[in-house]
């Protein structure tokens, strides 16, 4: 099925990397025009429209998985690309996330009841001393959308809280976020706490946040770094695979 939605076609033009064009393009080409309409409205932050369209799609017999994959996640993929390439910034991502949330409110109960096994369990939190959570929350939304079970520890998370959550939920991956250069060192302290608790080999640790980069992540002893929510999902998938 071709990409018929004119607005979405214009949005798709922002995707310029060959691999991404192929991957996202395939999703749109298999998508029903209604799914394309959902994607487009998610990208432009039309939360009322997404709410209405998702209800409409369910009423017309589309499965929750189809709406999630071909409508919401396909749209979020373009949002992720535009954010990474500095075409849009956090306010535009926030309105897209609000639209995704509006759609997910209808899908989540159906998906939860379906009994599909999650692809992995992730513990997420902003490190001790840091109260910023926008980036972390976007990551959590995308991880859940991708099929992960995520336990959100919130902000100002002490190393022992990360450790307790990993033990309690038997999680394969920990994701830590920091927005401040002053709190970034607490990522290293948390990794050290996992070592001291004898749990470092049992869990994979990924980090992210505006001032964090791959070099810092490596210096701190993390297993992975994601520059944005899309990369966070990619890292989580890689780390879960590596933990098996």
């Amino acid at each position, binding site marked *: 099925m071709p990409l018929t939605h004119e607005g979405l076609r214009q949005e798709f033009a922002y995707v310029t990397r060959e691999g991404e064009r192929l991957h996202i393009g395939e999703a749109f080409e298999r998508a029903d025009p209604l799914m394309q309409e959902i994607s487009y409205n998610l990208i432009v932050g039309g939360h009322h429209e997404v709410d209405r369209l998702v209800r409409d799609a369910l009423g017309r017999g589309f499965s929750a998985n189809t709406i999630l994959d071909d409508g919401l996640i396909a749209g979020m993929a373009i949002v992720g690309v535009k954010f990474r390439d*500095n075409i849009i*910034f956090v306010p535009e991502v*926030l309105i897209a996330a609000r639209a995704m949330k509006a759609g997910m409110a209808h899908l989540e109960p159906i998906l939860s009841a379906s009994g599909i096994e999650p692809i992995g369990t992730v513990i997420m939190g902003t490190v001790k*001393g840091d*109260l910023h959570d926008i980036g972390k929350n976007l990551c959590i939304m995308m991880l859940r959308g991708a099929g992960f079970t995520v336990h959100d520890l919130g902000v*100002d998370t002490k190393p022992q809280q990360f450790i307790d959550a990993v033990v309690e939920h038997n999680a394969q991956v920990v994701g830590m976020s920091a927005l401040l*250069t*002053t709190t970034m060192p607490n990522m290293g302290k948390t990794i050290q706490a996992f070592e001291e608790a004898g749990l470092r080999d049992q869990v994979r640790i990924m980090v992210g946040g505006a001032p964090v980069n791959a070099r810092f992540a490596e210096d701190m002893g993390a297993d992975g770094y994601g520059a944005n929510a899309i990369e966070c999902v990619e890292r989580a998938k890689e780390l879960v695979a590596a933990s098996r």
Partner: protein
Amino acid sequence: MPVAETMTPRQRVLAALAGRPVDRPPVANPTNVMTVELMDLVDAPFPDANRDPEMNARLAATGYTELGFDSITPYFTIIQESSALGCEMQWEQKDNWPTVRMARPIWSGPDDVHIPKGFLQHQDTRTIIESIRILKREYGREVAIIGKTMGPWTLAYHVFGVEKFLLMSIDDPDTTMRCLEKLKEISVVFGLAQIEAGADALTFPDHATGDLVSGEYYRKFLQEIHTEMVDRLPVPLILHICGNTLDRMGYISQTGMAAFHFDSRNDPQKAMDAVGGRIRLAGNLNNPVTLYSKGPETVREEVYRALEAGVQIIAPECAIPLRTKLENLLEIPAAVKDWAGERMAT
């Protein structure tokens, strides 16, 4: 051979901010360079050093007496006004920064914005004002005293919550503008009080950060307000915005601010090109990797890189991690002096 120093640190900083010739580039701290080691040295630990004028002044002075920077900056954090406005605070311990609990905003729109009675008498605004008086008395002839007043965008994060404010900015730009117009009065009141107490210059942090909003956002919401601040706060202003800000440096350079304090994510040469000599640059030594986890040799390399690009005031990019090693901070003025000896002596 070190260059012969013919200026006091204060003269050097003020000349650099004004774009006048200097004997060597100044080393300044528009944000904060206090560490746990310095707190221990003068028995002035966080959080108390943020809330007691004498302790605050004692700790702030170490930026000059122990580190050899050309300025003293007594406002270490970004939360003093917000505490006085009534925001819920998390004061933390010696090795963690105090912060505002932004998830529990105190206001929801422009009609809520006001300056509470006794705002300048509140413990956390008074601490900075009184500390500036002490520092001016003890060091004011010799060292530049840099105060700090938060811009309206930063205050908006604190009083409305970051997510709510950013959503407001896209859902209702007019209301957002009204919020900023009212919040800027808080910036002016606190800034003027610090000038009256003796501040030679003010840092003006306003976190329209590169990671959060676009350069176009800066132009639309803040450029005019920042230009107005230059007229209303009659000392040199040092605008501080974190993140990759190359896309807004052109706008920033037109505000009339004396300097822009910029982040290590911006290449210093590209930054110099972007501002085209219309504003001085201060920065941009990397905190989390270079100053926190590397050694003096890497610090020196970065200082030289900034100086070679023409950055006029050398400084860490932002407030440093509180466990930063002193040897790395001491290396900054040492490297600047060596560079000046090599490049400016002839």
